[in-house]
């Protein structure tokens, strides 16, 4: 007897659509295999099942300069899920339970 698969709830982040954030959006797309990116007026919504990760090095390689994860604060509009981790190299958004 198979156990029914639990529906994996989506997590996501809304970012301001701006020149500077292009690198972040591209980094998130590259690092999160199943993510969906939607463009709405002035903002970009990125959603993915279960877990979303933003990697500093991934952003830096696309931005062409050093970037600290604190700078993500200038980009974010909203998020859904739980910020599970935020350190020098990575930000992780997922649901706890």
């Amino acid at each position, binding site marked *: 007897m198979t156990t029914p698969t639990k529906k994996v709830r989506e997590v996501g982040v809304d970012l301001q659509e701006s020149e500077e954030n292009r690198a972040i959006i591209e980094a998130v797309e590259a690092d999160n295999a199943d993510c969906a990116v939607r463009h709405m007026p002035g903002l970009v919504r990125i959603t993915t099942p279960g877990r979303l990760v933003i990697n500093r090095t991934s952003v830096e390689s696309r931005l062409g300069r050093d970037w600290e994860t604190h700078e993500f604060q200038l980009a974010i509009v909203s998020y859904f899920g739980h910020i599970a981790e*935020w350190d020098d190299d990575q930000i992780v958004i997922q649901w706890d339970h």
Partner: protein
Amino acid sequence: MTATPRKLSMKQRYAALTRDLDWDLSYVDPAEAFPYTTFEGITVHDWSQWEDPFRLTIDAYTKYQAEKDKRLYAVLDSFAQSQGHLQLADPRYLNAMKLFLQGVTPLEYAAHRNFAFLARFLNGPGPRFAALCQCEDEIRHAQTEIHTLSNYNKYYGGMHNWHAQHDRVWYLSVPKSYFDDALSAGPFEFLIAIGFSFEYLLTNLLFVPFMSGASFNGDLPTMTFGFSAQSDESRHMTLGLEAIKFLLEQDAGNVPIIQDWIDKWFWRGYRVTSLVAQMLDYMLPRKVMSWKEAFELYFEQQMLGGLFPDLSYYGIKPPRHVSQAMAEKDVLSHQVYWTLYQFSFAAAFTTTIPDEEHLDWLSAQYPDTFDRYYRPLWDKARRVVDSGGRFFYQGLPQLCQVCQIPMLFSEPGDPAMLCQRHSVYRGERYDFCSDGCQWIFDREPEKYVQAWLPVHQIYQGDCGGPTVPDVLAWYGLAEGDSGEYEGSVEQADWKRWHASPAERS
């Protein structure tokens, strides 16, 4: 040979500059230094379990907040310099922002004060620091909202006296009393009321409609303010979610207390969002989405579908009376704007009958209710105008003791019948708009008997005098602030500013 200095990780640096600056009090009893964190019945065993995922220290905080302000003020200057106030879709749009300045901006200030209180009186250094950052954020929001809208104040009415009006005007007692209720509760209830129920559960329902409305209607400064503040809001959402999870995890005895607070504060906050519902459906010349759509997306899907399954792990259930809120989707905005239409002679904004295109949009968005219950009212209002009149309510309305909104809401299941509920406490009758508000009163009657209800205060002679003109003068309304939009000062100004040279001569 010099050693390379070791760099602390973000996590270590954050701990060193916040929590590790704390110390155990040896010269005063902690219970005296922190006298407010036991009376609510909440138990905290270990304050160090509070998590702050943003890990901002004061230097990073000020650096990034300054950057946000620079970017915002550049846009505000550019807008003012380019005569941006003439580029609105329609001047009627500004009624939404008058309501925002009068009703929401003072709440930012109130939040700032209460988070300052938490920054002193919570026992743990982690939450104290988080509260301090939010306190700074909220005063920033109050200030930037005022600056953002100040340019419009040079050209349009309704914005010049928001601060006094928040304390005096009938519809503004709705948001004011909501925050006063939270401010006069204990620190933990405030955290659940505002930090969680407002800043997480309901924040998108309040914020996104106003900011999207700005974007769609040519209000560049407000839209830019919205983006600028939203990044702060993501920290607020985090604090709210952390507050509830921390308290639920600290002791099983906290669970029923928190459930009660969620039940109360969802309903109180939801009633305040009635003002957003009418704004979305009636005040925006260019529509973003209907209230029904916004409620379904920002509350039903994201909260009931996303957040509450997460909280069920702790035994938390969706808010009591949530099904009533869901059932009201099809009627709420219509009932509220119909009320504002007939009372705007006493408001610091104007109202008007929706035109045919707007009425058709409402029919399409609300196929089950609009044509049956509300279009006939607007058609009749139009007949009154066509015969030279304008319907204004000749009297004062019955107010709900708890939410303080006129009792305009309908009986569940019957949009044609007003909902009337009442309780008797110590021999006096109190009236409520709904089961939700009655439940809130019945669990804490000692608090709500003290409500400063505008209509009752007018009748007690506390509002400037016995006549309507006395009260309106006390409200500090200027010519053109109130009443009907058609034929208003604002409409005349707009036509003159946009007139061609031939039209002007």
